[in-house]
């Protein structure tokens, strides 16, 4: 059996490859046979001619025998497909406009869909490149990767001692690790002439970080358990593969080299495998340091021993058989108890209240931590759905074009069927053509997708100013390509096959009628021209335009929303402000020296030409860092603890004047508050409304409870009670988040030696004119005071833009796809119009003969196209308005019915329709009566 099969295949292959010679051989063979027969009859006495005739007769039909032989060869099906392929290639080449339109459309559609899916996959879906990511569980708030907090213990991110307790007492994890941000660090590699200094991204991790994740060392080794025990004893680091390539050119000599991290000598002991850059999506890391090195590298912060310093994220690996739910219950209980043990009295009940409102988060860690993922996840999904619609649009587009083609070939098909062509054979030919188109387009689509993904991620990466690029692994996901390609193929076949079936079905084969209808082109022109030759063509294009409208409306709204975000009134004079930050973490400025430093800094900056005013602040504007506390306000009885929470900032003299915030009552913080007298506080409008509801707040008292500090600025465990007198009310302004509703905020002076836990000195400068012109002179001025300390100087508007980087990202991506959809719609309209006009050549010739001007014909065709577009718009607008409810959360400052963006979208679409149909319209106008006749 097997031998037969093999010989069969070999035979068929040979038959395919040397078809021509086989045909000739068959000819020779048959001819030889007939000759011998002829000779036989001749020997029996017949004449040559009679013998020949007799032989031929006896032989039967030569052609039929050849056919039978060919059938017997068993390659007929394959041969016919190969023949169809060649024919398809030729016929596609002969119609470049059609072919290019279809291929471009399909490629663009597949490319766009794949690109957006790659983005969504890289940012939202892909699990961590570690062993068995589904077993990983996060026991923290996965979005708080870069936060820290001083004060009462919290559970969104935890203190080191709390981590130790949870790790020791839980019963559900085989092991758990913790990681925390290193804060800004300086690294120096090499010495003397070859020194490079930089500020890489690094985190402190417990020694079991790599073993819990299951990440082996690619070179060298990872941390050992011993390196997790004694603070300061093991100055080692594990670097990432990318950092290894970038900084050390991938040389093995890097292992064992010493880097100076914040002036501490650290030895590199290993490199992680390529593709692993940490457990935080969107924040690739350069290296990891052992947790025990924290006190040496970040001195003065006591992060390992202080239960009030929360700064770590925790991740554990489930024991076999344990579910996420079981883990949640166990970890929540263990953690809550561990916290309660170290609190007493009011603090304990405060913590319990807090837990009720905000339970301990225990979630799946398969996809790692991510600061911004949740924020833009929904919007990205909506966008992906929209782009999925694009694929539908694409299929509709191609379908209408293929329909047009088939209808145009109706006469040819009818003639062939009348001559005896089998229906299946014709279908095969049409199918082969469709498949060829789909394959070519898919291949092109893959290239388009690769390029598009790269462009998308470059856009995404370049959009944020402060937060750094969003790097993600972007290897093309073949699943998606396969899916998109398969879907497109299905559509192509569906819409190519169905009309082909209809066109070739027996009932429709009326040769006489079809010939007649062609012959009567001139006469029947008026009737033919009115109704579309393409049965659903116009409807499909209208649907396409409706879908484009949908995307345009969404895109327009997002664009307007972004514009609002970037220019909205946030209560300060944002267009004339510059924010200065000086990092103090390893400087000698503490206590009174720090207070003096701040004053000197503000003074020096205010002397720069062009600077109107400069003032210092603890948290400043959009400069990271926030403070809050619980207050008791005179004359107000809180109903719940949450009513006592306010945000607060320490500010220097003239702060409100400098930032351009408006004082509604009383005065701002001034020089007099720095010296002596009862501590003053300025509250904002929201706070005044909440606590004083109509009465005059001035003169009231605010009592604040905060952790105490020692003279060196370190946080102590005891709490201080501070009393302030309200001296002014300021209009609400946004200092952290453009979007949020204003919170209750209060502003007091610094009660030195408070340094602020961000370890930064911040100054805001008000300038005359464009802030970007003053960045350099201000930076120089700061250098004069701060010397070699790390400095950042940015216009506040840039910082605001950085804080809404995910919105900017979304808008840029959406606009990218709006353009793609527009191009697709234009292609679709062009294709259908071109085909339609090519069928109506005789009609145009007739019109020309009857006296129509070329302009009239152009206008007529354009008018028809625009009418289709209008129908699309009319359907698309209400659909779009409905759909934009989905992105309402992303919108800022615009309602769902925004007339300017709606109007712009409609105009753009109609303009595109005109442009797309212009060329075919012109071509129609050029048809003279002679050409129409010639077609007959």
């Amino acid at each position, binding site marked *: 059996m097997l*031998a*037969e099969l*093999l*010989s*069969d295949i070999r*035979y*068929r292959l040979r038959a395919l490859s040397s078809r021509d010679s086989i045909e000739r*051989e*068959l000819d*020779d*063979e*048959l001819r*030889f*046979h007939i*000759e*011998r*027969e002829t000779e*036989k009859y001749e020997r029996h006495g017949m004449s040559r001619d009679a013998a020949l005739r007799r032989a031929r007769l*006896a*032989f*039967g*039909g030569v052609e*039929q*025998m050849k056919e*039978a*032989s060919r*059938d*017997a*060869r*068993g390659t007929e099906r394959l041969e016919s497909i190969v023949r169809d392929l060649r024919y398809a290639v030729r016929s596609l080449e002969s119609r470049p406009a059609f072919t290019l339109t279809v291929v471009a459309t399909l490629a663009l559609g597949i490319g766009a869909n794949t690109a957006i899916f790659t983005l969504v996959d890289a940012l939202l879906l892909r699990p961590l490149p570690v062993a068995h990511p589904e077993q990983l569980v996060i026991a923290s708030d996965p979005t708080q990767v870069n936060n820290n907090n001083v004060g009462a213990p919290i559970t969104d991110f935890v203190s080191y001692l709390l981590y130790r307790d949870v790790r020791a007492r839980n019963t559900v994890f085989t092991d758990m690790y913790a990681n925390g941000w290193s804060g800004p660090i300086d690294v120096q590699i090499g010495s003397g002439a070859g020194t490079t200094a930089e500020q890489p991204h690094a985190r402190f991790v417990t020694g079991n970080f790599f073993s819990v994740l299951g990440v082996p060392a690619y070179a060298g080794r990872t941390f050992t358990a011993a390196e997790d025990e004694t603070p300061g004893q093991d100055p080692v680091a594990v670097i990432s593969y990318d950092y290894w390539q970038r900084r050390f050119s991938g040389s093995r000599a890097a292992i064992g080299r010493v880097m100076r991290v914040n002036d501490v000598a650290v030895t590199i002991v290993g490199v992680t495998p390529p593709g692993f850059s940490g457990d935080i999506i969107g924040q690739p890391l350069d290296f990891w340091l052992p947790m025990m090195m924290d006190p040496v590298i970040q001195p003065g912060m006591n992060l390992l021993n202080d239960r009030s310093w929360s700064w770590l994220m925790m991740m554990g690996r489930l024991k076999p058989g344990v579910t996420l739910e079981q883990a949640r219950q166990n970890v929540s209980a263990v953690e809550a108890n561990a916290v309660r043990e170290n609190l007493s009295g009011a603090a304990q009940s405060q913590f319990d209240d807090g837990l009720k409102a905000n339970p301990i988060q225990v979630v799946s860690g398969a996809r790692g931590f991510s600061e911004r993922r949740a924020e833009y996840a929904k919007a990205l999904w909506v966008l992906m759905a929209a782009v999925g619609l694009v694929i539908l649009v694409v299929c509709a587009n191609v379908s209408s074009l293929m329909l047009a083609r088939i209808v145009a070939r109706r006469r040819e098909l009818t003639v062939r069927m009348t001559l005896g062509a089998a229906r299946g054979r014709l279908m095969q030919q049409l199918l082969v053509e469709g498949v060829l188109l789909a394959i070519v387009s898919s291949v092109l689509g893959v290239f388009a997708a690769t390029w598009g993904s790269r462009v998308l991620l470059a856009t995404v990466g370049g959009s944020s100013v402060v937060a750094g690029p969003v790097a993600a692994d972007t290897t093309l996901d073949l699943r998606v390509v396969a899916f998109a390609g398969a879907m497109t193929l299905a559509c192509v076949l569906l819409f190519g096959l169905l009309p082909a079936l209809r066109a070739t079905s027996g009932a429709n084969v009326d040769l006489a009628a079809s010939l007649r209808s062609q012959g009567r082109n001139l006469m029947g022109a008026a009737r033919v021209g009115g109704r579309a030759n393409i049965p659903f063509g116009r409807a499909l294009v209208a649907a396409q335009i409706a879908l484009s409208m949908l995307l345009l409306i969404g895109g327009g709204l997002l664009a307007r929303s972004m514009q609002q975000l970037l220019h909205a009134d946030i209560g300060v004079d944002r267009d004339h402000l510059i924010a200065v930050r000086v990092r103090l973490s390893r400087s000698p400025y503490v206590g009174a020296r720090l207070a003096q430093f701040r004053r000197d800094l503000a003074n020096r900056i205010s002397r720069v030409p062009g600077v109107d005013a400069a003032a210092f602040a603890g948290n400043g504007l959009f400069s990271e860092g926030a403070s809050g506390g619980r207050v008791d306000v005179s004359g107000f009885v809180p109903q719940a603890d949450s009513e006592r929470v306010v945000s607060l900032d320490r500010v220097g003299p003239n702060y409100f004047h400098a930032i351009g915030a408006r004082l509604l009552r009383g005065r701002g913080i001034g020089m007099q508050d720095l010296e002596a007298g009862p501590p003053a506080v300025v509250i904002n409008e929201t706070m005044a409304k909440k606590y004083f509801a109509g009465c005059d707040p001035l003169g009231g008292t605010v009592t604040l409870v905060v952790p105490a500090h020692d003279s060196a600025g370190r946080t102590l465990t005891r709490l201080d009670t501070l009393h302030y007198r309200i001296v002014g009310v300021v209009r609400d302004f946004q200092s952290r988040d453009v979007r949020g509703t204003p919170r209750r905020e209060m502003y007091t002076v610094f009660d030195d030696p408070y340094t602020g836990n961000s370890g930064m000195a911040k100054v805001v400068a008000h300038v005359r004119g464009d802030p970007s012109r003053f960045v350099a002179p201000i930076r120089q001025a700061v250098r004069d005071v701060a010397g070699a300390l790390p400095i950042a100087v940015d216009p506040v508007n840039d910082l605001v833009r950085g804080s809404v980087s995910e919105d900017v990202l979304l808008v840029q991506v959406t606009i990218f796809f709006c353009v793609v959809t527009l191009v697709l719609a234009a292609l679709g309209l062009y294709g259908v119009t071109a085909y339609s006009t090519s069928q109506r050549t005789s009609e145009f010739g007739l019109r020309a003969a009857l006296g129509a001007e070329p302009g009239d014909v152009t206008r007529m065709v354009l008018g028809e196209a625009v009418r289709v577009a209008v129908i699309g718009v009319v359907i698309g607008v209400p659909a779009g308005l409905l759909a934009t409810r989905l992105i309402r959360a992303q919108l800022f400052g615009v309602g769902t019915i925004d007339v300017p963006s709606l109007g712009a979208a409609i105009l753009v679409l109609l303009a595109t329709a005109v442009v797309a149909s212009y060329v075919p319209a012109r071509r129609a106008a050029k048809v003279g009566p002679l050409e129409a006749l010639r077609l007959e």
Partner: protein
Amino acid sequence: MADSRLDLPQGTLDLLILKALSLEPMHGWAISERIHQVSRETLQIPQGSLYPALHRLERRGWIKAEWGASDNNRRAKYYELTRAGRKQLDAEARDWERLTTAVALVMRMS
């Protein structure tokens, strides 16, 4: 002459061709002539089915073909039995024996 010819029962054409080729390689016309003669002119292979049958057998690997010179020095395609073909011939001959014996037995009953 045409009347005394019998139609070949289904499926026996392959058997006859294989048998004819088991004696010596032949070209298509020769096969047809040989069978006609040996059967005392009873069996005449329908010309239209000879060559398709030959190509079918070639495909299944039971015969193989080669171009050679015929007795009057013209080019002809010669077919030859392969080893698999010989095995197939034996198998089919056995089946044919059994079939005809069985049929004869049935026919003899009265």
